[in-house]
């Protein structure tokens, strides 16, 4: 399968195009950079959600550098693909990805959650280019994504809508209203990616409010479902390039991830949902990430 990886999307800005044979190492490096940036940002801000930042980094990087048809110099181009970050609390990873993709200068990441910064704790589309919807309150991204996909379908437009949700977030009923609507409108141009790291703020999802059997729930709502390793860039790329899975159904990619992925002492730990690393922990985490990126 590895040879079959398609080239990144044609509309991706030239500066950020990655040749197919370079893709996995390049994506690995970019993901490591997003992880490092996220931890530095959370450490500097003394606030954030590092566990989810690290679990979503590979998904975000693969989307922005391998799937989305976007041009950071034209962030409101009508024909752009829409990406909605429903798990808005993982803003550090999101901002680091947007900056790496060229939506704003990477230096600005240092202003994360500082007074008057555009990099609010949760994304604000009215201030920051590349943000499509204001999120932070959970269960908002999917309904908005359904509306966007519906607009494209009404116009017969080719642009697609992707939305990344957390897994704990799926406890919000608004998602299931939207899931029903997406299937009803046969929105094959809509793809939801679930960051299935299994942990929410207070505990594991299955102990808090059971989500399983999750794939069956989406299927029962009329979606085509694909389950992938959410840290395997090739598997993610293949899934993103395989949509629509069915000509008349919305697409759900359940990305199995690990919260805190990439840093041994953060991985799969509930308390790192919104814990802030100490100076020593940051240094140790950055060392691990540097070594892994080699």
């Amino acid at each position, binding site marked *: 399968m590895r040879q079959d990886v398609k080239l990144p999307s044609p509309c991706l800005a030239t500066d950020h195009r990655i040749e197919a044979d370079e893709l996995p190492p390049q994506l690995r490096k970019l993901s490591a950079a997003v992880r490092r940036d996220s931890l530095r940002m959370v450490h500097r801000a003394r606030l954030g959600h590092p566990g989810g930042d690290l679990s979503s980094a590979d998904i975000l990087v693969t989307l922005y550098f391998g799937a989305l048809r976007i041009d950071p110099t034209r962030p409101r181009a*009508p024909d752009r693909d*829409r990406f909605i970050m429903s798990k808005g609390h993982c803003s550090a990873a999101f901002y680091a990805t947007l900056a790496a993709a060229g939506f704003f200068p990477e230096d600005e990441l240092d202003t994360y959650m500082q007074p008057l910064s555009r990099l609010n704790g949760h994304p*604000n*589309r*009215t201030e920051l280019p590349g943000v*499509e*919807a*204001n*999120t*932070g*309150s959970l*269960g*908002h991204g*999917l*309904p*908005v*994504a*359904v*509306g*966007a*996909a*519906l*607009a*494209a379908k*009404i*116009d017969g*437009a080719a642009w697609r*809508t992707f939305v990344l949700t957390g897994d704990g977030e799926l406890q919000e*009923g*608004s998602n299931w*209203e*939207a899931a*029903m*609507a997406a299937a*009803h409108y046969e929105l094959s141009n809509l793809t939801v990616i679930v960051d299935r790291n299994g942990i929410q703020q207070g505990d594991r999802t299955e102990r808090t409010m059971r989500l399983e059997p999750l794939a069956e729930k989406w299927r029962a709502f009329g979606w085509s479902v694909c389950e992938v390793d959410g840290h395997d860039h090739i598997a993610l790329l293949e899934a993103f390039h395989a949509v629509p899975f069915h000509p008349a159904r919305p697409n759900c990619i359940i990305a199995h991830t690990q919260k805190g992925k990439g840093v041994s002492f953060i991985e799969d730990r509930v308390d790192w949902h919104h814990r802030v690393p100490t100076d020593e922990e940051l240094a140790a985490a950055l060392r691990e990430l540097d070594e892994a990126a080699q």
Partner: protein
Amino acid sequence: MSPLYDCREAFGRALEEIAAADPRILVVVNDSVGSSRLGRFAKESPRRVINVGIAEQNMIGIAAGLANGGKIPFVCGASCFLTGRALEQIKVDLAYSRANVKLCGMSSGLAYGQLGPTHHSLEDLAWTRVIAGLCVVVPADPLETDQAVRAAAEFDGPVFLRISRMPVPAVHGADYRFRMGQAGVLRSGDDITLIANGTMVSRALAAASLLAGEGISARVLNLATLQPLDREAIVDAAAQTGALVTVEEHSIHGGLGSAVAELVTTTCPVPMRILGIPGNFAPTGSAAWLFEHFGLTPEGIRSAAWELLRTRVRQ
């Protein structure tokens, strides 16, 4: 007796007309085509009407997404559910996101009188007017409804239109031009000002006529836009007439009366009476009966005005 109109008719006609001229305009409903008077529109332009079923949170999110995709959605549903059930979506997906979506809260206030407090919408103005960046408009008659719909479509940003189903007479002449954020003096006067919007405007005008017969010159201010507030018109009324009676088909807490009081206490404090529904759930009864019950009648407004005028004389 002047003829009475259901403003939903003017609402539906205006929406049909602007939609015919602008393909970006869509209607989003929660199985509320009939109650929004959009039956003909839905029949003639079925592809322009998106029925999301009974799901208000999703309805607002979908509207925000449609706006992101370049559409101008008019979201129409019973005001009690549209606002209350999806308030956080209205705040985040529309106002904070500055989405170009128009909310149409139908059959607001006490219109569903006998159906009880689940269906009364006596909090919607309080909820919506405090949301930053959300315009709140309460038209008083068919002409103002028609023009408010057009103004909302032209305005780039979220708007909440509160549309009643209670029969009302025309209060504006054919030359009236609604402007968002601008209050209208419908009757001039120097002794007191009656400030109303929506269904209460014609009643305030009738009260002013009663007062005129008793030698009192009452100004009537139609505060059709509750947010942003026409500060100048309100402060002028306070300064020039020295007493204010506000009248609204809404809780006395948080709506028109509160908005006026917030402004005049900090600019030009004058004696005030706030008429509306006191802070309790309304009993069962038709809307017309409930208006009588709560004193939201020309006679009730007249009495409140006199009470205020007597207080002022004593002072």
